[in-house]
């Protein structure tokens, strides 16, 4: 393979960035650095889970306190949009994983294609979220907290339902937006040749982050849309 040949002849100026990559001065070697970064990312994912667990906990508490408001609230959501978005995110998770595999195999063209599909899916998720869910509901007065003024509310605490809905999906959407920025950065760097079989730490990290964003939605979807 070309990779091995060029390794044997030493690192040359015209080599892609990933071949010229040197680990930080305090790491013994590149593998240690990769492992360290990966532990770091997993710990970060743990903090993400705990962040969202607060919201899930609040959901459970208010489900017990005001079951009819929560049941009524979830009737307002159209499961089909939630479902489409679930599929969109699952596809994006798949293409993200494929992109990492592509750089591992040094298939740079395919890596770009997969990353772009991931970015398109993320954009699609937000587009569906805003165009078919946030904007129509907001304009009907189905808003959070003191902004709530939906005239046909049938239960007392529907503003609490909308608060939970907007807070949890809003924090999730914020994560999607941050993820889009990261993926765009990955595309830029990947086109410059920064990632390859021996160095793809950033891809791996963003990939794991993207999977947790996906996973949180997997839990939000049934709780908000399907359970009445």
């Amino acid at each position: 393979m070309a990779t091995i040949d060029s390794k044997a002849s030493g690192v040359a100026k015209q080599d892609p960035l990933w071949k010229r990559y040197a680990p930080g001065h305090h790491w013994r070697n590149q593998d240690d650095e990769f492992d360290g970064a990966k532990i770091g990312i997993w710990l970060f994912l743990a903090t993400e889970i705990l962040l969202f667990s607060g919201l899930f906990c609040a959901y459970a508490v208010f489900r017990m306190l005001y079951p009819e408001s929560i049941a009524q609230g979830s009737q307002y959501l159209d499961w089909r949009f939630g479902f489409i978005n679930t599929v969109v995110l699952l596809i994006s998770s798949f293409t993200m994983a494929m992109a990492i595999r592509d750089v591992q195999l040094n298939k740079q063209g395919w890596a770009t294609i997969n990353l772009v599909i991931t970015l398109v899916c993320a954009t699609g998720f937000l587009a569906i979220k805003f165009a078919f869910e946030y904007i129509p509901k907001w304009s009907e007065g189905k808003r959070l907290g003191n902004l709530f003024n939906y005239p046909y509310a049938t239960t007392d605490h529907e503003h609490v339902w909308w608060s939970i809905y907007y807070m949890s999906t809003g924090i999730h959407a914020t994560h999607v937006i941050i993820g889009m920025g990261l993926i765009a950065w990955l595309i830029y760097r990947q086109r410059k040749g920064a990632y390859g079989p021996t160095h793809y730490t950033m891809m791996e990290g963003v990939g794991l982050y993207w999977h947790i964003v996906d996973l949180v939605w997997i839990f939000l979807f049934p709780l908000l849309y399907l359970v009445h």
Partner: protein
Amino acid sequence: MTTVDRGLDHLQGGHDEHHDVPYLTAKGGPIATVWDWMTTVDHKKIGVMYLFSVLFMFFLGGVAALMLRIELFEPTRQTAAGLTGAAFAGGEGSSVGAVGKFYNTVMTMHGAIMVFMFIVPGIPASLGNFFLPLQLGAKDVAFPRMNLASWYIYVFGSFFGVYVILTGVVDTCWTVSSPYSTSTTGQPQFIAMILAVFVLGFSSIFTGLNFIVTVHKLRAPGMGWFDMPLFIWALYATSIIQVLATPVIGVTFLLLLFERLFQIGIFDPGLGGDPVLFQHFFWFYSHPVVYVMILPAMGIISEVLAVHSRKRLFGYRAIAFSSLAIAAVSFLVWGHHMFTSQGELAATIFSALTFLVAIPTAVKVFNWIATLYKGSIALTTPMLYAMQFLFLFSIGGLTGLPLGALSTDLHLHDSYFVVAHFHYVMFGGTVIAFLAGIHHWWPKMFGRMYNEFWAKIASLIVFVGFNLTFFTQFFLGTQGMPRRYASYVDDFQLLHQISTVGSFILAAGFFVHLFVFIHSLVVGERAGQNPWGGLTLEWETDPVPLEHNFRHEPVVRHGPYDFESVVPPGCDEKEFPLPPKDEVRTIH
């Protein structure tokens, strides 16, 4: 010798000559030096910057505490503080309301600064940052840039928070409990303070995450998990709590923020929210976080007691595992802050779980005392502080038990007994250990010795002042003085006055310390490589560590506390003589 040249420099990312200078060496002119410090990713410089930042915050929080004590000198709401208070509260004159508001604001300031800006980042981010990589034999923490980011976030959050509290009238106390926090005045200031604390959480997570990865991946060759100094074990347990608890306060404050902005009705009972949910969220973070405060202190005590009594630590593994046990149990006991706001069964369970904390804590204390047995104890300042710790922390720990028991807590809760208990653990424990650690590692951090005589005098003043201030508060509490009040009935006056006098003695002790430190930095005697004869890896570096810490990657050949068989690095055998061979019994 324990450090050998393995000739592996070519594998270690290069051995660059220009990094072989002490880390304190100035880089050109003053502006260049300041720029160098502001952009450094060196864990030692970041540790020093953190040290001065948290000590400055300690000063601010201390001033607030003294203002509270002045106000409490007289039973009625009074003048000395009242005059400044009137200006503070918007020129309403020295009316009763204005002074009360002022008192609450200062109390909030004291609590918020001391908890979020001093004691939580305190030991890990300053001494931990400096010595964790050194004790592991590493060149730096795993993510150096993230480490610097942590400091910037801390500084930004702290100054923002202090500015907000000073200019506004945030008087919710640091616990910001709903519904008061969702309905009190001072909307923009309150929102800003919430944001400041939210931001500070990131700096805490960054430090914790960094430490965990560093411990996992950057230990020197030959250093297994049970060859690590106990300070590292303590920091490791601390970091786990920081990473797992802080996100919860993050989402809580985010929800509180939206509660203030849009009345989302999650926490505000007037809108159908659940204030008890807020308490659960808040204490799910804020209880584990008291172990973030105390665990690193316990780590320092383990180091200091072993080195200054030249004894192998008794029960190394027991101390190491008890740190992890405390971290684990810390997540199960938050409910004891809310005995009155939950069901009887829940309260009983939380009470029982609370007693569990006493077990690993007592394991540590007994092991420390057993370590001292037959040691050659040197009464240096760090050792004096370590002994103070044993004494004060034991009082603090034992007075926690009546607070954890439901029946006695009914009488004692929300009284000065709680205040005294908390300060015996946090001040008598953490701050005293912090002082022990600063003196223990001062020579290594700045390459100079401090004046032992005056440091000992200062430690004595601190000890007397502390006990006068807070031991009286146990009596106040048992007699029924409630916490958080600006005025009280006349019967309590004598005890309150002793407490106030004590607080000023305590402050005087700290000023003596300050002068000892400044004196040391300016004209202190140059320190040797290993003034105390320690065996952990930080004592194998140069008197002032090099930028890359070690001249060659160290290899661990002995345990951190093998005082009976190893001549300390950089020391004369006459200075720290080994015991005769036949007297040594190796214990494993």
